[in-house]
């Protein structure tokens, strides 16, 4: 099938989803022990979207993300230890501990970046696509955002301009049913939010967001179109947020039965099932074990890394000659 991931691509997506899941679990545990700072927004159960939507992008392509971006970071090829160290506020973090878990950026990998103002990643990627068009290059910009962000005004402003100017941008909606603690059905009357994108004349697709292969196929088609100069695309990935809004969420508003139903459709297990019959179980077990060890090593190293020291810079001097 056109735009299908190769077996190697599938194994890599499987591996990256495990990296993300183990990372989320490690941070969940550390948070319970009081060893993290600030809220952490876990994406357990949603890994297929971030990992598969970014799998066909190059480092030259741009990605903007959200406050729940760990799968996006890993999908875009950002170094795991650099992510873990940033989340732990270490000097070895990708941003030296200045950014924290919601704002990770790695420009060399085209990950620019996390964004904790809900919806702000959408015009951000649209602006990058505008830049690509002005410069006449063949880079594509992608933004991954949620159903909560889809209720913002900048969502509409951005999609309108992207469609009007045929900008090379791909909008990936990671529809996890919740914006903050409020279910999407109580945030807007539109069940399939991609119908709003269609109203701007943007090609859309709705896929099972827990099926990495389905996400990959739909997004790859939109990326190809955008790269050919045919304008933006929009893929709505239906998934579900297993954990709460953040590690500071006290819960009580998500139905346990619904969560249990979704957990039966674990994107990692779906990816594994798709590979069985093509690749031996023993080999996949090795992939899994190595991924788990990679997370353990990254976390151990990050925890042992030094905290940063505050440095004077242009931003800290009043009446600075620079700013």
């Amino acid at each position, binding site marked *: 099938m056109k735009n299908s991931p190769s077996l190697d691509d599938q194994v890599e997506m499987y591996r990256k989803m495990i990296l993300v899941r183990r990372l989320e679990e490690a941070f969940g545990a550390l948070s319970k022990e009081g060893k993290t700072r600030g809220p952490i927004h876990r994406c357990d159960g949603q890994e297929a979207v971030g990992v598969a939507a970014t799998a066909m992008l190059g480092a030259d392509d*741009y990605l*903007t993300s959200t406050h729940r971006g760990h799968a996006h970071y890993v999908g875009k090829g950002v170094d795991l230890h650099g992510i873990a160290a940033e989340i732990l506020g270490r000097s070895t973090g*990708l*941003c*030296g501990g*200045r*950014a924290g878990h919601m*704002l990770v*950026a*790695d*420009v060399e990998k085209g990950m*620019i*970046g996390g*964004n904790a*103002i809900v919806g*702000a990643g*959408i*015009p*951000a*990627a*649209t*602006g*990058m696509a*505008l*830049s*690509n*068009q*002005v*410069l006449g290059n063949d880079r594509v910009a992608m933004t991954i955002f949620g159903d909560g962000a889809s209720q913002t*005004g*900048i969502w509409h*402003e*951005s999609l*309108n*301009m992207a469609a*009007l*100017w045929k900008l090379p941008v791909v909008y990936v909606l990671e529809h996890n049913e919740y914006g903050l603690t409020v279910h999407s059905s109580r945030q807007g009357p539109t069940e399939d939010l991609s119908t709003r994108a269609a109203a701007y004349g943007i090609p859309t697709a709705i896929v099972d967001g827990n099926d990495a292969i389905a996400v990959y196929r739909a997004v790859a088609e939109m990326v190809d179109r955008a790269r050919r100069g045919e304008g933006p695309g929009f893929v709505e990935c239906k998934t579900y947020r297993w954990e709460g809004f953040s590690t500071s969420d006290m819960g009580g508003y998500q139905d346990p039965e619904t969560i249990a139903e979704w957990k039966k459709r674990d994107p990692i297990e779906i990816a594994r099932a798709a590979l069985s019959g093509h690749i031996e179980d023993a080999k996949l077990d090795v992939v899994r074990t190595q991924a788990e060890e990679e997370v353990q090593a990254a976390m151990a190293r990050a925890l042992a890394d030094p905290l940063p020291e505050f440095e004077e*810079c242009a*931003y800290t001097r009043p*009446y*600075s*000659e*620079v*700013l």
Partner: protein
Amino acid sequence: MAKLRYAEALNTALREEMTRDPSVFLFGEDIGTYGGVFKVSKGLMEEFGEIRVRDTPISEQALTAMAVTAAMTGTRPVLEIMYADFLPLSLDALINQASIYEYIWKEQVQMPFVLRTQGGGGAGAGAQHSKALDALVAHIPGLQVVAPVTPSDARGLLKAAIRDPRPVIFLEHKLLYNTRGEVDLEDEGLIEIGKARTVTEGTDVSIFATSKMVIEAEKAATLLAADGISAEVIDLRSLRPLDAAAIQLSVAKTNHAVVVNEGWKFCGYAAEISATIMELCFDDLDAPVARVTLPDMPVPYSQPLEDAVLPNAEKIAAAARATLG
């Protein structure tokens, strides 16, 4: 030397920079086919094409956010926000995006964009189209804010702003566009951001003014001269970074200071300058710093009402006389 209108000087600067650097592009409402509501971009779409000079929908919030990230990824956008009164729509992109990334991302990115806008009253445009919101943008670390008064400064500062590696908010005034002044087109004419301009030298009182208020301050200096008072008028020109050295030098000479800004008084731009003078020049001051600003109220529409609230030469002269005792 050429005698240019302020709008023509800006147009010249845009043309020069777009010719010099293909990564410079313009976007905003009415700027293309129509040439801008104040005709600053007149003729540029014909000259540089619709990719580089782009009419946009009325979407300031996303447009400003797009300027930030386009600047991050290899272009030098110049975004026109038609009225400074619309800046509140741009604020998330300025405060939560442009302001943070160079620092937060550990110098991985720079954002060389220019946001041009115009504010101020006197044109009967009413409460939503007449404000000077200088303080709103000058408050934000990471942004530079300039407000040229003369055509020569308009050209020189706009060229410098476009070439600068960091964001610049470029504040114009609706009543300046038709003012004329000498511009040396033979010279590159770049003006360093962060330097004030001494308009008239004086010895008795320093008047620090911004944007169109510099013209009112010049008129005030003439009024004061008739009373035998020698006023020094300083055009701050660069609102942030501030030329604190120029302020210190002037106050050391005159020992009296009046600050004039067309924005609101409470927590306003004049308050910041006043506090700066107090911090840096306390021992030089013979009297408290005086502020001349818009009162803390909306700008009314009808001419006598608007005239009553806008700062002008008479109010500035009165404040100068009061501070001299």
